């Protein structure tokens, strides 16, 4: 939470815009200072301090026990796997991992924690002083990470009435209460809404690569709170506000753009920004006051007497470090260096572990990385976008895509047919050879067949032929299209082009 301070001075990040330039989402003449607090649910099978399962989507209150319901007389016992995943996350974010940390009680009265406190880590967190790199122009920008600590998730509260303001009761599902989380707090080194999104994308990729979390924002396994203030370039940092309820990467960018503009407007009108917590209203596209400073929380943290200190063996930490997989930055560099991919493409593919794995498996079966990359960047991503799918949900087997690419290379199908086959592969899951055979999509290179279609196209379109002969090169494209149509897209386009030119002679000779 924002209330957590390690007592170290907070240095603000530098300006994002090039000198004299204007960063998108930040009004001219102003700079934004942004820090993010991200909660990431760890991919464990059981909860942080009890053995309850963590399966998402279970019926309400079906994954609870005396420990996570806060019944009297129970003792929490930490999950070793949760600690290991938190250490992995910390190491992957270049943090220093503490061999001695402790659990504290954060006391509050929301009904979403039945104990009236949440077990967290306050002044001795698991890890501190990390960073990650986000792309900036041709290079990258380092965003420092202040701390990473372990805590338990809260239950989920809903309200009986539709209106959150007038509801008199909270309805509670405690399935989520006690699921292990890491909270990752950045330094305020982020200067634009776009950088905030890039930071989150990179954080998500790193968490997925090292198997710490599936980071499904729609299931709440990655959640983000924003701290933001504005200032004049080189001036003193302004009063910051905290923005909550930001539930997608796009919402982070929108909420920040809105909140920065709001603060600038207040200041330019001679007013003062109030230190407060605000709620992002996704539907209305604005932030609203949730609580002001007078109601700011005093969580009265103290060491949890039920939990002795968390003491980690340095050898275990080193063992976890050695087991870290290749992370996104290293993989991107390898794709550029060893496979010759353009840096942009390598960046896009490695931004998702699932996409990168799909790419590599396809390359193993069809060792032409650039061709595979073009397909992944093009057709694969297009299909995912059009159907609102995540890279984890690519409906095609890498070996099947490799087969299709080999068929293109051999000339069995042309590019146009290949795209059609790919779409069908996505929809039916069938191998490409079967689809090509069944649909009769084999490329026709037999000149006598194509010749007939070429002659028909010329005979049937005298006006277009006349245009071409007058020098309108574009008219040829129309005729190629007619031939492709007549052959149901199967004609070899090179052969079509050559035959048409042979028949028509050079353009402008008419």
């Amino acid at each position: 939470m924002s209330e957590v301070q390690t007592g170290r001075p907070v240095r603000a990040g530098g300006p994002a815009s090039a000198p004299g330039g204007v960063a998108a989402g930040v009004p001219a003449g102003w700079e934004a200072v942004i820090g993010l607090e991200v909660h990431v649910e760890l991919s464990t099978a059981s909860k942080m301090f009890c053995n309850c399962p963590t399966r998402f989507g279970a019926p309400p209150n079906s994954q609870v026990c005396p420990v996570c319901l806060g019944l009297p007389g129970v003792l929490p016992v930490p999950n070793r796997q949760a600690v290991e995943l938190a250490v992995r996350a910390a190491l992957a974010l270049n943090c220093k991992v503490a061999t001695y940390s402790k659990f504290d009680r954060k006391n509050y009265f929301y009904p979403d924690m039945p104990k009236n406190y949440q077990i967290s880590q306050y002044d001795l967190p698991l890890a501190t002083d990390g960073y990650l790199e986000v792309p900036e122009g041709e290079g990258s920008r380092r965003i420092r990470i202040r701390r990473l600590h372990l805590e338990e998730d809260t239950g989920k509260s809903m309200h009986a009435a539709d209106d959150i303001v007038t509801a008199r009761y909270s309805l509670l599902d405690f399935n989520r209460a006690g699921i292990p989380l890491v909270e990752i707090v950045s330094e305020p080194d982020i200067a634009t809404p776009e950088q905030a999104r890039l930071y989150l994308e990179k954080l998500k990729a790193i968490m997925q690569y090292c198997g710490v979390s599936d980071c499904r924002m729609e299931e709440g396994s990655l959640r983000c709170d924003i701290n933001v203030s504005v200032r004049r370039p080189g001036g003193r940092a302004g009063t910051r506000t905290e923005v909550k309820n930001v539930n997608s990467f796009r919402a982070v960018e929108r909420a920040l753009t809105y909140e920065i503009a709001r603060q600038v407007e207040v200041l330019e009108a001679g007013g003062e920004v109030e230190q407060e917590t605000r709620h992002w209203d996704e539907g209305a596209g604005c932030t609203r006051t949730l609580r002001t400073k007078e109601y700011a929380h005093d969580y009265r943290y103290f060491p949890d007497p039920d939990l002795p200190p968390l003491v980690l063996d340095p050898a275990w930490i080193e063992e976890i470090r050695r087991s870290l997989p290749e992370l996104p930055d290293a993989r991107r560099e390898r794709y550029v260096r060893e496979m010759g991919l353009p840096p942009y493409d390598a960046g896009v593919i490695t931004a998702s572990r699932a996409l990168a794995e799909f790419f590599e498996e396809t390359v193993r079966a069809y060792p032409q990385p650039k061709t595979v990359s073009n397909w992944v960047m093009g057709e694969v991503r297009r299909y995912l976008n059009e159907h609102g799918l995540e890279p984890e949900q690519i409906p095609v087997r890498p070996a099947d895509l490799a087969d299709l690419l080999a068929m293109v290379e051999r000339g069995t199908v042309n590019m146009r047919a290949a795209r059609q086959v790919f779409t069908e592969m996505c929809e039916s899951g069938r191998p490409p050879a079967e689809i090509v055979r069944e649909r009769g999509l084999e490329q026709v290179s037999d000149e006598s067949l194509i010749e007939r279609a070429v002659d028909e196209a010329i005979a049937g379109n005298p006006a277009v032929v006349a245009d071409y002969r007058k020098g309108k090169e574009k008219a040829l494209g129309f005729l190629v299209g007619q031939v492709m149509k007549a052959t149901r897209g199967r004609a070899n386009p090179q052969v079509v082009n050559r035959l048409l030119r042979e028949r028509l002679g050079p353009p402008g000779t008419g």
Partner: protein
Amino acid sequence: MSIAEVEHVAWLARLALTEEEKRVMAEQLGRILDYMEKLRELDTEEVPPTFHTLEGMRVPLRGDDPRPGLEREEALAAAPDRADDLFRVPRTGEAEGEGA
């Protein structure tokens, strides 16, 4: 300790105190704080800080083995009130999801 400080601490703990109770608490809490002040007189320059009352122990870690907990009816049996399969409690005036 001042009455105002007692009132603040009581509010944080959601305790309603009578004027008499506030006076008693101010006196008792004040004595505890005075004792802390007395301890402060000691020179602790060379003494490593104690972060935890269980210093010297280390928390045991358990395996990540999911096991069923309570049956839902059993869990909800202790609820003050319920709505279908959910616990129902008076709301505290904070928006949804404010806890974490």
